[in-house]
């Protein structure tokens, strides 16, 4: 196959493209879902195909196919060229790409136990055991467990001479309990976090370390306890936010608005644009001085990590926010060239049939120096919230509102009664400027989010966020009916 990939890029050059690349992917996915002690579904998915991207007459064209042979590659190349020519009739200016280092390399992540070599019985037993423990609670009417495994081999070859082969193995899983009261109220609790749990570029060892069985009793018990908890207080008060919720807070309010394609309006018709316009770069106080946020694709095992992005740019670590100041964007070769920045290795596609767009890697709130007790003890009257239930943010990423699964009052520096349906809302930069405490390295965890949506057609990307619990002052909470 390597020869065919080099051959088609040679053909692209002969046909006059000013740039071209091909990505060939082999993808295998295994999903296991249980519900109330039964298998809801065990699914295996196999997918193979390639996509060719070209620049002709200064415009992009892309086509793809699941039929992998030389004649189909030639047909797809011709389609991509014809599409680029059509695009060029509506161009404002020619596309230019920033220079990158051309390389031939192979990247293999550190995976100890291939999850595809682990028997289904062993995988199911974990979910059955967790389910059995959760079933002790009569009010828990719906019990769910899920495991996810993904194995991928990806070839990237460009007309510039790059030839990169990357392997990737992802493992993930979680459990959740839905308690229903006699009056029909429904409350949910998840572990280790919501929406399918936690994910990592790791093998079966990651699932064993999740300790789903060991945490299932607490999850089920809490889902029942929430039913009789106090409602979330309403008003402006101090809030301490858990590590897994800070992951989503960082994702929505820092990750997306620092994507340079959004800033340039490329997502305007769908997900929106960004308040972080270019004149604010290096001249805008985005958070308090303790807020440091990085984009780091080099963190071992992080779901947003890799060796090279889908333009052949090597994985890297950079600051987006340094000492509270907005200092960086996530860029592509094309967008970086427009503003004189370097490509940050952020271009990824969610499959062979999709064009790469700027995607978050691992966007991390860097750890601070506080213990959890420090964070709580500094609050006279406030709340502590855990685990996302709902998220929404406006189309410039300013006004956000999050709902969490569970919360507790904080009174005079101590955790108090449990509260239900906690929500909080704010304006992004006002919120981050009010941050006066971030948990230390011991509380910091890289959360894998497998379902970040962006682009048209929508592409679902695996990203991650390192985060520790953090404290914010004078935040509006309790916005619900």
């Amino acid at each position, binding site marked *: 196959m390597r020869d065919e990939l080099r051959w088609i890029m040679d053909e692209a050059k002969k046909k006059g493209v000013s740039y071209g690349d091909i990505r060939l992917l082999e993808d295998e996915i295994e999903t296991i879902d249980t519900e109330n002690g039964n298998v809801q579904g065990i699914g295996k998915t196999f997918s193979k195909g390639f996509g060719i991207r070209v620049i002709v007459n200064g415009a992009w064209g892309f086509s793809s196919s699941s039929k992998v042979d030389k004649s189909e590659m030639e047909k797809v190349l011709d389609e991509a060229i014809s599409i680029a020519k059509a695009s060029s009739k509506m161009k404002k200016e020619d596309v230019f790409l920033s220079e990158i280092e051309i390389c031939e390399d192979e990247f293999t992540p550190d995976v100890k136990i291939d999850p595809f070599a682990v028997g289904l019985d062993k995988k199911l037993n974990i979910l059955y055991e967790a389910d059995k423990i959760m079933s002790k609670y009569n009010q828990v009417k719906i019990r769910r467990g899920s495991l996810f495994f993904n194995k991928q081999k990806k070839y990237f070859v460009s007309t510039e001479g790059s030839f990169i082969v990357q392997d990737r193995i992802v493992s993930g899983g979680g459990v959740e309990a839905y308690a229903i009261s006699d009056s029909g109220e429904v409350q949910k609790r998840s572990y280790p976090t919501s929406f399918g749990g936690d994910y990592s570029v790791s093998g079966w060892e990651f699932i064993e370390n999740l300790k789903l069985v060991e945490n299932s009793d607490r999850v089920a018990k809490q889902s029942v306890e929430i039913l009789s908890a106090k409602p979330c207080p309403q008003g402006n008060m101090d809030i301490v936010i858990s590590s897994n919720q800070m992951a989503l807070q960082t994702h929505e309010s820092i990750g997306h608005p620092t994507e340079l394609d959004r800033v340039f309006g490329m997502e305007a018709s769908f997900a929106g644009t960004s308040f972080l316009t270019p004149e604010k770069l290096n001249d805008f106080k985005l958070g308090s001085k303790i807020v440091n946020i990085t984009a780091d694709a080099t963190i071992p095992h992080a779901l947003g990590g890799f060796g090279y992005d889908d333009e052949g740019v090597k994985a890297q670590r950079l600051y987006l926010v340094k000492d509270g100041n907005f200092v960086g964007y996530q860029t592509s070769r094309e967008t970086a060239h427009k503003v004189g920045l370097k490509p940050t290795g952020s271009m990824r596609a969610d499959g062979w049939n999709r064009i790469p767009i700027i995607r978050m890697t691992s966007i991390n709130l860097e750890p601070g120096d506080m213990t959890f007790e420090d964070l709580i003890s500094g609050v006279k009257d406030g709340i502590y919230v855990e685990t996302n239930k709902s998220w929404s943010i406006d*189309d410039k990423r300013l006004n956000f509102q999050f709902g969490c699964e569970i919360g507790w009052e904080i009174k005079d520096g101590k955790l108090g009664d449990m509260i239900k349906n906690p929500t909080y809302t704010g304006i992004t930069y006002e919120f981050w400027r009010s941050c006066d405490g971030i948990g230390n390295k011991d509380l910091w965890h890289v959360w894998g989010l497998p379902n970040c949506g962006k682009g048209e057609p929508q592409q679902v990307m695996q990203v991650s966020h390192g985060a520790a619990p953090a404290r914010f002052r004078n935040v509006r909470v309790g916005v619900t009916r």
Partner: protein
Amino acid sequence: MRGKDEILNVLKKGLDFSKGDETELLYLGRESSLTRYANSYIHQNVKENNSLIRVRVIKDKKIGFVETNNLTIEGLKKAVEDAEEILNFTKEDEAFVKLPEKEEAKEIKTFFEENLKVTPEDMAIKVKNVIQKASQKSLDAAGALSLDLEEYAVVNSSGIEAYQPYSSITLTTVMMGDDSSGYADRFSMKFNDLNENELADEAIEKTLRGTNPKDFEPGKYEVILSPYAVEDILFFFSYLGFGAKNFHQDISFMSGKLNEKVFSEDVTIWDDGLDPEGAPVVFDFEGVPKKKVTIIENGVAKAVVYDSYYANKFGKENTGHALPQPNPVGPFPFNIFMKEGESSINDMIKNVKRGVFITRFHYTNPLDYKRVIITGMTRDGTFLIEDGKISYPIKNLRFTQNMVELMNNVVEISKERKLQKGEAHVSVVPYIRARDFNFTGKTEF
């Protein structure tokens, strides 16, 4: 496009490989072209061609699933064998009865050959027309034009052999001025029926009218919601409440409330996959013909939609609303209709003393699944209505609204309805006027 005979032959070969008690093969094939534009030029122009088969094998009430895009004989054989391998590990599903049997389906045209002739140039010209209209008003245009040519087929061991080609075209645009934006979209099953000029005019009118938006304090206001926003709400009702799975698990707002009044008596909602006024699909992903289901009639909860699994489990009629299996969502209504009212949209505006006109929502998300409490933002055209007239544009607002209460607060429905493609279904929806819409926050633009 592979065509009926080739696809059904491939699927039937898959049946021959199976050693299960029952077997089903679902084919999903798609050629998709998408032209995306922003800042008034085309920045993404792509084509994809993919076909996959989902295999479901059942033996002794155990069920195994495999999906593959390797459609060679070897690939198909391996997929069936892998599905059978899963049976060695899974438990019996006592609620599973059997795969559906063949039923006669109505013949409806869902594919138009003229779409096969559409070239990348044709796509670019349609987009160019939108961009030119925007430029004439000194506005920037962004959006996407997509052309999907699809084929669905289902073969199972109970005699189902169903095939349906499907074509659809969607054009969206957001026009942007210095401090305002306007949105419009159109959906059609024929490329040449899509009127890009009319779409551009609608978005331009909203953008120009939205210039210099004023700050506006959140609170409870009467609202008029355009079909874009109404479709968003109906999606959440469909996803959270109208399907049999959530209904029987007691997590739907309709659970335990059949034949009770749940919405205003002015509200009637049904699903009808066979009505050509919508975007018809003849059968579901199990090959079962679509049946019309009246979900809400004059405000009273009447029924939810079923697939074969939940119909058998609860002794109900299979209404033909299966998603590809396995699926955590359960049966889902794809073709929602909301009954029209008697007022024109202009009359509805005249009937508002002080309220808010909402063009569309952004980033809506449920805070409470059962009570259907949704939060989100307004976007691309939010206006204050005073004394029966749109008085001025206002900055976007956040809402946190119990949508069941909203449907109880409906006071007027337009006679105009729009064919509206949403996140997961295509609906036919009117404008609605409702009291006490709960705005809970605001933003800076």
